[in-house]
């Protein structure tokens, strides 16, 4: 183990090969770009579907495709959610987690073709599952709507595509580890386990009675928190100190955040079943776990916001494209944690149950937090991997503002609209048509937000694809730094 250069001074250009890429990055360029491009394509499709479903929801009688069975709301909304989570959320984090742990563990991906194979299998299975939903063959369980034969394929594809971070971690040359590594390794273990168990208990050998619903709620919370949430936390832990060039403040608390997050997140699922005929203690465990999730939320808030607050970090973050997105996500995560704790309680939960509130919480976690962090990460990683510049600064601005406004609009509309509707539903003097009428204004906001999110996604895709195409052009391009 050579110890000659611990000072961290720049060493000039890497010794051999490509003038730009480190060997670590050169090896994972192929699989990374496959994951990334498929992720962006799915994001675009999901965004288009998001606009259509918002229009349909706003005016069920006169929405688009109202006479077309294949594009009926029930199918589109399932396809939209699945594509966003399995298409965008998974492919993008396959790419980012792989890159992150390769960097931190100095891991050279030798068998990249396996990851590529896994990525191809994942996206093919996804396409098949979506086609089946369009054809009317969907299961009644959110995020498990694909016909059950898709499950094993996705699980195997995940092992091929998403397990490399663990290999990288196991082969790391150094003894000490960094917070990002823990979260990615945890996420990479948590998802396949919960997915297989959920497939088994919900679809293949359906557990009897309420156990099926409990298993499903457990799966959804694990998917959102332990895969999407943990992976995004790993990225924030990496990019904040990396770009600011500063240590995480209160870093010694990070292990507590990691363990408490993984301990409590797995128990939060049953809170979604409050008020249903599930044994009381299971519901209460869900409430308590959701409230105790405030522990990692507070610690990550100290870590992230503390780091950003020191030495005008916020203004530096605002002026850096990556950090602008990442710190937006970090704030969103803190908000999500607080809301999750408060609205797990029976009193508040009773008000917002059966409204759009839960969708708002999911949007806050999956879009305002995870997706924004992913965007920020892409602005950092992609130039390094392609060796090109982002073609258009204007598109970057359009991307940020459209996405930020769209996500704030949709989260506020879903949360506040859900709260209002809940209040009115609980009031016997308000009739159901009146509730629907009062929600129409929020529906309008939702539609506008969906359009904004689509605009942001298109701007991002144009920029990213332009950059990838430019970098794969044969002519040697100029260095951007």
């Amino acid at each position, binding site marked *: 183990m050579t110890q000659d250069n611990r000072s961290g001074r720049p060493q000039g250009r890497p010794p051999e090969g490509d003038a730009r890429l480190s060997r670590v990055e050169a090896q994972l360029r192929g699989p990374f770009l496959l994951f990334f491009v498929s992720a962006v394509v799915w994001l675009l499709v999901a965004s288009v579907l998001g606009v259509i479903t918002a229009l349909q929801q706003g005016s069920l009688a006169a929405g688009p495709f109202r006479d077309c069975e294949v594009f009926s709301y029930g199918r589109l909304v399932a396809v939209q959610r699945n594509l966003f989570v399995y298409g965008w959320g998974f492919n993008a984090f396959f790419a980012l987690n792989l890159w992150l742990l390769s*960097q*931190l563990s*100095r891991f050279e991906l030798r068998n990249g073709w396996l990851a590529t194979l896994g990525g191809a299998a994942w996206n093919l299975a996804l396409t098949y599952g979506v086609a089946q939903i369009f054809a009317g063959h969907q299961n009644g369980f959110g995020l498990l709507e694909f016909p059950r034969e898709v499950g094993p394929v996705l699980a195997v594809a995940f092992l091929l595509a998403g397990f490399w971070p663990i290999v990288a971690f196991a082969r790391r*040359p150094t003894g000490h580890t960094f917070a990002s590594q823990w979260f990615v390794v945890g996420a990479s273990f948590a998802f396949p386990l919960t997915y297989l168990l959920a497939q088994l208990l919900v679809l293949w050998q359906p557990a009897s009675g309420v156990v099926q619903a409990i298993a499903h709620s457990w799966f959804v919370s694990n998917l959102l928190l332990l895969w999407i949430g943990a992976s995004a936390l790993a990225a924030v832990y990496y990019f904040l100190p990396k770009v600011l060039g500063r240590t995480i403040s209160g870093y010694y608390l990070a292990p507590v955040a990691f363990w408490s997050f993984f301990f409590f997140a797995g128990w939060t699922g049953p809170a979604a079943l409050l008020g249903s005929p599930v*044994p*009381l203690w299971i519901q209460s465990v869900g409430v*308590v776990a959701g*409230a105790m999730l405030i522990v990692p939320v507070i610690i990550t808030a100290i870590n992230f916001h503390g780091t950003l607050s020191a030495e005008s970090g916020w203004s530096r973050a605002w002026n850096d494209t990556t950090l602008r997105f990442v710190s937006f996500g970090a704030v969103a995560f803190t908000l999500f944690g607080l809301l999750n704790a408060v609205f797990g309680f029976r009193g508040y939960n009773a008000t917002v149950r059966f409204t759009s509130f839960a969708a708002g919480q999911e949007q806050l976690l999956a879009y305002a937090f995870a997706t924004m962090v992913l965007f920020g990460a892409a602005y950092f990683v992609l130039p390094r991997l392609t060796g090109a510049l982002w073609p258009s600064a204007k598109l970057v601005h359009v991307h940020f503002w459209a996405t930020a406004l769209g996500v704030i609009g949709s989260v506020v509309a879903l949360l506040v609209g859900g709260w209002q509707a809940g209040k009115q539903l609980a009031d016997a003097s308000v009739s159901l048509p009146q509730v629907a009428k009062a929600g129409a204004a929020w529906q309008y906001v939702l539609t506008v937000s969906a359009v904004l999110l689509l605009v942001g996604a298109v701007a991002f895709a144009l920029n990213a694809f332009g950059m990838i195409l430019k970098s794969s052009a044969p002519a040697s391009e100029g260095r951007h730094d």
Partner: protein
Amino acid sequence: MNDRNRHPDNNRSRRGPSGAGSEGPSDGRLVEVHSQLSRDKDEPAEGFSLTPIFIVFLFCGFGFWAGLYLTRNSGDFSPAAFDLNAPKAAVAGGPVAFEPDAAKGEKLFLANCAACHQATGLGVPGAFPPLAKSAWVAGSEERIIKAILAGLAGEIEVNGAKYNGNMPNIGAGLKDAQVAHIATYVRQAWGNTAEPVMDTKVAEVRKAIGNRGQYNPADLLKEHPLEAK
């Protein structure tokens, strides 16, 4: 080719590959510095503030609250408790509020009844009538409940033998559930095979008979004739 297969660390510094090398510290440095931070907890380094003690108390408070909430809102961890707003008894025991328990009944029987009727349920010939295989305790629930609650005084024939009974109103000093446990035990011990008795039935009978004296066995038989075997 040989070179490609070597680990990057073998011929490179611990800084690791940092690519373009312009943005921020290298990853190797990032890991190192943070690992140092988490080891040296007591060093007054940058970013360390007085928050920890506050955090410790706060998190202990959360833990304490979590325990309280769980014990108070979990229906004693019963698999049959679903509704927090259900009546307390129903929450504790689920849909069945009261479970007649012959084991509890046995204890109560030994304390209150066995002095005369004996632990064997056979009584004392010529003095105290038997309960084992007695038609009086089987059949109608109300008959045995009334006997326990109010007592019996007068001539009584049990299993073909005559006794001059004087049974005090033992049940008047017991709770409904206790009387139900005793009656259930008596109706199911020593070869008796009658149905268990519920506490609600005891409460009903207690209310119906009010505060009365001992029954004459003949009167009690008029109200609840012995069932044919």
